[in-house]
């Protein structure tokens, strides 16, 4: 069984409440990935075919502004990175860089997308979980944009 390669991941909060068949379906698309510090994991505009579960290390979500790169947020062990594989145009919206040696479980988004099309229960369950992650990130980004440490002038 493929999912036995990632026993600790069935305990990941993301999988909580999913039945064994759904967990197995997701994990059957999984592979181990390692990125050394400084390596690019994804580039804005490139085809987005992966969802990553970070097991160790840290990645930065980077906005490639002219002449400089702005780090929007960093993610570390336990976090998920990448949802562009789920929605058209299936292209990365930001650059993703390893800022501390990274071990991750990568999920092949194309296979998973196909499974979701076949099994709408799986698709809905995944959509709900990813939406929650997106909402949490959006909330955090809003707070970040408020610049709460600036003078109240």
């Amino acid at each position, binding site marked *: 069984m493929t999912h036995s390669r990632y026993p600790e991941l069935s305990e990941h909060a993301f999988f909580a409440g999913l039945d064994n068949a759904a967990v197995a379906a997701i994990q059957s698309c999984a592979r181990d990935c390692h990125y050394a*510090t400084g390596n690019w994991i994804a580039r804005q505009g490139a085809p987005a075919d992966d969802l990553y579960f970070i097991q160790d290390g*840290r990645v*930065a979500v*980077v906005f490639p502004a002219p002449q*400089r*790169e*702005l*780090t*929007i*947020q*960093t993610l*570390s*062990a*336990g976090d998920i990175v990448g949802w562009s594989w789920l929605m058209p145009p299936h292209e990365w919206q930001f650059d993703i*860089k390893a*800022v*501390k040696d990274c071990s991750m479980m990568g999920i092949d988004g194309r296979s998973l997308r196909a499974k979701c099309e076949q099994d709408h229960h799986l698709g809905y369950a995944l959509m709900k979980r990813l939406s929650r992650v997106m909402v949490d990130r959006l*909330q*955090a980004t809003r*707070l*970040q944009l*408020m*610049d*709460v*440490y*600036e*003078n*109240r*002038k």
Partner: protein
Amino acid sequence: MFMKIGSDLRPSSIQPDPMCPDVHHVMSISQETSDIYTLKLQPTERREAVRFAPGQFNMLYAFGVGECAISISGDPTVNNVTEHTIRRVGLVTGTLGSVRAGDSIGVRGPFGTPWPMDQARGRDVLLIAGGIGMAPLRPVIMDVLANRENYKELTILSGSRDPEGILFADELLTWKKQPGVDSKVTVDHADSRWNGNVGVVTTLVNRTVKDPKDTIAFVCGPEIMMRYAVTELQKNGLGKDQIYLSLERNMKCAIGLCGHCQFGSEFICRDGPVFRYDRIEFWLNQREL
């Protein structure tokens, strides 16, 4: 503008009056970040040791300019020297930032409720600070380190605007090396030269809480950040009675007389600034209070 040591505001026969500042001598002023500095002060006239508890504040008076409330950021085990870490935001904080060693300022206090160190005994202590909010939490860290056997794990989560704005950056690294202490720093804005965490400090709460039933959290920072912190702490299993916040409002008398600092049914100078969350939850969720 600043008085010289030895000058006095009142005859020594008069009993200490909470409205009358004691003259303090500036021992040193050190720059922490571009807009934050620390004053080390010593009383020029009081004979007895000036004692404070972590979380309390003093009213600092720049003679002829005005007064403002500033938390005590120094070591609670050191007598007769008071440290204040101050962010320049306006007239008084700007004026206090231009003092030099040897100048004098007025000090009233200490005032207010402290962090409940007795409630923290035997538990994991989680501190969440945003920006200058690290200042009133620094004495907590010093107290925990001085009485290590009384507490379980100490975790310090500190957020600031950018890498240059991290308050007590060197100390955070030193504290992290102590047994049973972890500190995590994050910034809201950074370019790719910064390899640390980027994101709001509340995002660090996840996966930090190990034993929610046996954890106490002290939070200090901008009010909106504290509200998000409370939400995250609750998501991670902490009860309302395990979360303490330090609040700020404009102050004048600092002794519960004038009503300037009123926050619903509470006076922040007298009933706070440190409150257990469930005591102020209702008021914190009222708009424009």
